[in-house]
């Protein structure tokens, strides 16, 4: 499964004298199993790009093709179901549900897919153990550190077994140790399960681990390089 963008544009303030082109006629293809970092300064359009890749924002023009099917032609309900089953999201501010425990946060997205309670409980527990939170299953987000919350977010993103994970500046609020641990986990999942990770970041720690780095500026792709694997 691959994602292909064709002449993708996102323009804000369209009807004004000062339109802002967050993404400007972008062509891009990301194949399954890639570990991609989209880097660029603040306001360069990274988040907008990730949102459109993940189908949570609508482009002004262009196509988002997943296996040659334009997801923009899907009905609202179909698009939500598509996202639910194929795309995981990790956000800079973790965006966990504060009233649910770590385990419940992960279970919840699986329940949206219609899995049984038992199945959800088992997979959510496994994932949380895998991201190193075996001791914190029943804690609410407020009782967890930033790094721990982001790990819950990773487990949540992976719970529905998505093909792609969109991570919007996932390490922005984390210290060096938490960042390294989180990247280890994501890299491991990418290598072992073939999950595609697409990061928006300007964190050199993330960029150094990425297999492919896309430099984005003023809505345009400036560079697209494949990095040599680190030893």
């Amino acid at each position, binding site marked *: 499964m691959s994602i292909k963008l064709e002449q993708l544009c996102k323009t804000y303030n369209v009807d004004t004298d000062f339109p802002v082109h967050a993404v400007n006629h972008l062509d891009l293809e990301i194949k399954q199993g890639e570990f991609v970092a989209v880097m660029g300064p603040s306001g360069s359009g990274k988040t907008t790009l990730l*949102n459109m890749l993940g189908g*949570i924002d609508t482009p002004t023009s262009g196509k988002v093709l997943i296996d040659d099917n334009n997801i923009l032609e899907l009905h609202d309900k179909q698009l*939500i179901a598509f*996202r*639910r089953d194929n795309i995981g*999201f990790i956000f800079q501010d973790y965006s966990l549900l504060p*009233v*649910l425990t770590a385990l419940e946060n992960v279970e919840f*997205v699986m329940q949206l897919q219609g899995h049984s309670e038992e199945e959800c409980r088992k997979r959510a527990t496994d994932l949380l153990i895998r991201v190193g939170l075996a001791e914190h299953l029943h804690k609410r987000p407020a009782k967890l550190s930033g790094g721990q919350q982001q790990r819950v977010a990773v487990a949540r993103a992976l719970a529905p077994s998505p093909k792609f994970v969109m991570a919007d500046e996932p390490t922005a609020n984390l210290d060096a140790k938490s960042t390294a641990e989180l990247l280890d986990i994501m890299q491991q999942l990418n290598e072992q399960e073939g999950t595609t990770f697409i990061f928006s970041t300007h964190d050199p720690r993330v960029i150094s681990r990425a297999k492919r780095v896309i430099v984005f500026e003023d809505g345009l792709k400036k560079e697209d390089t494949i990095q040599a694997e680190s030893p």
Partner: protein
Amino acid sequence: MLLKLAWRNLWRNKLRTSIVLGAMVFGLVGVTLMIGFMNGMMDNMISNAINWQTSHLQVHQKDYSADPEIHKTISRSSQLQVQLDKMTQIKTWASRHLAQGMIASARSTRGITINGIDLQKEALITPLAQNIYDGFWLDDKGRNPILVSKKIAQRLKLRVGSKVVLTFTNKNGDVSGAAFRVRGLFKTPSSAFDEMNVFVRKADLKVLSGIEGDHEIALLVNDIKQLESVKRKIHVALAQSDSVQNWEELQPMLAAMSASMASSNIIILVIFVLAMGFGIVNILLMSVFERTCEFGVLMAVGMQKHKILQLILLESTFLGVVGATLGLLCSLAALSILKVTGISLSSLADGLSAMGLDTLLYPKVSGSDFALIFITVVLASSLAGLYPARQILKQEPAQAMSEKH
């Protein structure tokens, strides 16, 4: 999970939820007590009217109520009374000989209805015998004893032992009258009734009017549910010139007030529910808008919009259920206290008496009233979630997620 999420969301901001619940509880207690007070007032008016004035049923000559002339007596009264004795559904009955006339003291004169009563039977059908304010209930002793109300006594400057003169038209159309001596003073809950009625022995009045027979037979039934069937039976036993009426026909204004009571209770409830509904919408808007980003995340991770609608409606429904339950429990507690103590309105005694009301009222709220209040509040609360939900569902996930709080 949706239920769990909705319930926990409700308690995210405990202070805010508690304030809304507090407002709902106070409002509901107020509404319930208001409804209870109105019901209690109406019940009291009806029971007083039945106990003191109309009984459950009354038999008259057909046009007696419109034109109460002394010769309009009930046909075959004594045969009817025999039949009434045989009807097991009838608790008791009493016949009356009535005359429209004047009562005069040395000080003043007033127009009144002279009730010639059967002493034993009357004591069973109305509480008059037990409510002699001063003096004694009538008995066979003495010549022409009379019971007058406290109100008439005040107007005519009478006391027990005073002499009054009753005048009225007899069967020949001549003015007839006699002197009576006040045996006792009574007081009923209705000042209007008190101002218009005096009671004498039936035999004394018959002698003066020169008319045999009765003008009125009042009846009480054992079971109010059987009222209409008893009425039909009596109707069959009556001569064509006579009629039997239930208390609603005898007191049409009271019946109309009673019938409109349900509507006025609903109006009170609707006003409360509307005010509460706006309050809940306001709170839910705040609660939902401060979580816009969170709803964006839920949409992003694949929660269908109808599920988000369900979540918000569940939150508002929970709020309604908790508020209505607490409100009704507090109302029950308040009602159980007031059912013992009553609501004393003695400072309004004159006004209440004009309406036939006691000064101590007991609120009454039926199970169906409670159910109606509960259902209406929960329903209104649930519906109040629709508008905030609509505002959220209009947004795209990315747009919603960009809203920071």
